[in-house]
């Protein structure tokens, strides 16, 4: 360093330039966040302005119709409840069970390492691919071509399973091992430790993961589009082998209609969908922050 060659003025100028560069770039970083938030705001406004005029009780309680103003979302709402209910019934025991097995029982051998790797990969498989799997295995093979609610729920189960497993694993890992040791010291076997210590303490974390997974199942359209295909349903599914539609699918159908008013009811249905999803996300975040395990040091 030949600092003697740099005059005081030059040094000051370079410092000023560097400080200004800092300020200019921080504006850029703030702008990135602001654009993201503005995008979200624009999306919500767009939907609210288009949809609010169409949102009324009649809209919630009637079936889809060829006339936009008489259309409602009763059938897709019922279909969504069916799919999510069945998915929850299947995915909770399987997902939590897998997590317990991997975290508490499995030895760290190659096979179990493979299962973990496999779950991480499944989480990244595009949802259309699950649709193709469901179409070939559940619709055509299991139900002989019947595009029913159960096929949809089974497909959704496989789709959201990795989310439930990974969230439950995290919840189990967060249970301090000193609690486990205490139970072991009292002579409990591993399953008793899981049943009486790990599950109750990990439950809030698992719950928030499960809620997020189910909200994913509610919002997902591509696999159901492939499974259900039938897009003009005007009845409430009465049994697990009934045909069905779900909210995102109905929204897609309406967006694809040429008449302008169908855009409006699509937006109204989006409002309903977003209210359901945002409140589910809110509940998940609330559970997570309220019951977060803080291990004593």
């Amino acid at each position, binding site marked *: 360093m030949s600092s003697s060659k740099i005059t005081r003025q030059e040094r000051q100028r370079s410092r000023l330039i*560097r400080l200004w*560069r800092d300020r200019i770039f921080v504006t850029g970083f703030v702008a990135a966040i602001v654009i*993201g938030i503005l995008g*979200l705001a624009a999306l919500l406004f*767009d939907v609210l302005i288009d949809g609010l005029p169409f949102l009324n009780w009649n809209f919630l309680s009637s079936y889809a119709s060829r006339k936009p103003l008489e259309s409602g979302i009763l059938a897709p709402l019922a279909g969504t409840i069916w799919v999510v209910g069945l998915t929850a019934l299947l995915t909770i025991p399987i997902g939590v069970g897998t997590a317990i*097995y991997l975290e508490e029982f499995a030895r760290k051998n190659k096979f179990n390492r493979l299962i973990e790797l496999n779950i991480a990969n499944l989480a990244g498989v595009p949802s259309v691919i699950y649709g193709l799997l469901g179409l070939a295995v559940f619709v055509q093979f299991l139900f002989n071509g019947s595009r029913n609610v159960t096929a949809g729920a089974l497909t959704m189960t496989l789709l959201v399973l990795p989310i439930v497993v990974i969230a439950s694993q995290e919840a189990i890992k967060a249970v301090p091992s000193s609690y486990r040791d205490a139970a072991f010291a009292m002579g409990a076997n591993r*399953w008793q430790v899981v049943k009486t210590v790990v599950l109750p303490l990990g439950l809030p974390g698992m719950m928030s993961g499960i809620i997020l997974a189910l909200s994913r199942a509610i919002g997902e359209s591509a696999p159901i589009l492939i499974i259900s295909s039938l897009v003009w349903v005007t009845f409430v599914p009465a049994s697990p082998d009934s045909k069905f539609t779900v909210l995102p699918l109905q929204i897609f159908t309406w967006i694809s209609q040429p008449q302008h008013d169908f855009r409006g009811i699509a937006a109204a249905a989006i409002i309903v969908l977003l209210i359901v999803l945002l409140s589910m996300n809110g509940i998940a975040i609330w559970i997570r922050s309220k019951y977060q395990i803080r291990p004593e040091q």
Partner: protein
Amino acid sequence: MTRQRPRDVAPDPEIFKFETAISSRMSTNPELEINQAILDRVARRRRRQHVEQAIVIWLLRAAALISILTTVGIIVILVAQSAGFFKEVSVWDFLTGTQWTPLLKPQQFGVLSLVGGTLLVAAIAGIVSLTLGLGAAIFLSEYAPEKLRRVLKPILEVLAGIPTVVYGYFALTFITPILQGVFGSDRVIVFNALSAGLVMGLMIMPMVSTLSEDAMVAVPRSLRDAAYALGATRFEVATKVVIPAALSGIVASFILAVSRAVGETMIVKIAAGATPNLTLNPLESIQAMTAYIVQVSLGETPQGSLEYKTIFAVGLLLFAMTLVMNIVGRWVISRFRQQYN
């Protein structure tokens, strides 16, 4: 991952022997004989608990197997169905052809025009999400006070929870009209790659920002302090110390986000069009691989026909593309973890 697992305190067969031994010894002592019934009950309960645990372990193992079966199922279905397709169309023609007209005569099966559409939209989404996501991550990790950070992060993450069909609606009814206003409606087709790409970029932005920020936060404080001690500005610390140190995490977040964009269906189905088109012009209408799969499965294509099998061939290619990206992304992340732990 590295948590020490305490050895199971009850290696059950030994415990049984031990308990039986105690109880038999005690029964020789007349004063303690009264306890025999209790000890028997304890031993019986232990055995029952042992059986219960054995059953539970089998059930849990079965649950864990379902994930393996899912992967096997995906691969078997995709390969088996595309095998029929590749009997009639050569793999080479499929992978190198640029005309995709399976539903029209003459049929042509050059998947490149679908791949091109997918990559065009994903590239736009990648540029948007990298710019916005990285900027947001730098601000959150290097500049924002903790309180502000706690408010901003959840707001950004709401973006990741919005259903893709809603983004499709937003692209079609909000972004496309704006683009038509900017570039002129004669140049911008209603269904275009740019609108879908921009909105998809917004959708995957939180993925880039969250994962990148995690990587930046993991950079040791001491590295930053050293740079500050030399008189560096925050921008210099961010760009010359933190970003290079967290680079693999940032790269990984970008790869995983783009893989998400490649596999996304509803935005491209609603907003990007249905015309297979190998182009670099984002204002044109294209068709993405996912959008093609959905289009055919919604149509009247008879099951088992060649047209029907195309969706599995396209699906197989899509699966392979995202799988490679995910594996590379996670490999980069695991490399990065080794540096600081």
